């Protein structure tokens, strides 16, 4: 008897990378490949990849304020009928009440990232980070 690795709660992957723009392509590739392991469609994968990319951008731009010496950890796991992504950084604590999507009727460059995360994921919340970490964003998306 074998255990289906994709139905367990073990991580599909955990990746620790420097929180820098030049690592985002690597993160997107990992998230996309892991999502496809779960048999979801390409548009679903595209939405997940965009949401995780935007969350990583927030870490780079806002949590680390553009500093290039911090790391972030992206951990992805399947939980029954959903995929869960945890994004951990080692930056100072962020006040979750300050992380808000902007009004779309306000046409201006920037500010769309948090909006994308909120509409593309089913649940988004800051949770208690592991010891030694700064912030932990937990995002889940139902598998369709």
């Amino acid at each position, binding site marked *: 008897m074998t255990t289906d690795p994709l139905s367990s709660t073990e991580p599909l992957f955990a990746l620790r990378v420097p929180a820098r*723009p030049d690592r985002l392509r690597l993160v997107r590739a990992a998230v996309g490949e892991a999502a496809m392991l779960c048999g979801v469609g390409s548009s679903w994968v595209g939405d997940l990849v965009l949401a995780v990319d935007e969350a990583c951008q927030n870490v780079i731009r806002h949590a680390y304020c553009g500093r290039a010496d911090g790391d972030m950890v992206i951990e992805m796991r399947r939980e029954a009928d959903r995929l869960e992504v945890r994004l951990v950084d080692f930056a100072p604590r962020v006040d979750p009440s300050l992380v808000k999507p902007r009004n779309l009727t306000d046409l201006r460059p920037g500010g769309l990232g948090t909006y994308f995360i909120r509409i593309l994921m089913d649940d988004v919340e800051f949770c208690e980070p592991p010891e030694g970490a700064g912030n932990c964003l937990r995002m889940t998306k139902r598998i369709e």
Partner: protein
Amino acid sequence: MTCEAQEKNGATVVSLSGEIDLQTSPDVRRFLLKSLSQGKSLVVDMSAVGYIDSSGIASLVEAYQTARKMGLRFALAQVGPSAMRVFQLARLDRVFTIFPSVDAALQDHA
């Protein structure tokens, strides 16, 4: 990520290729604004853009707003499904003028 410009029918056609993200969008922004400084209408060929995120969108919005302030036309052409999805999420498909081809965009500029 590459950006190339050529003059066609009195407009500047900028062809973007690759993935537009936080790493590459500053280059895209600079290239689009520099192209607009020529004082001609701008058509952005998106056919080879495989990915765009909010930072790439911001570059396009800034170029669009700059073109409007300069009294120049700004259009997108051949937007692929991945980029169109992002435009739709941001409701920018209702803001940008989008053509199915560069030729169609140039005809509209003529």
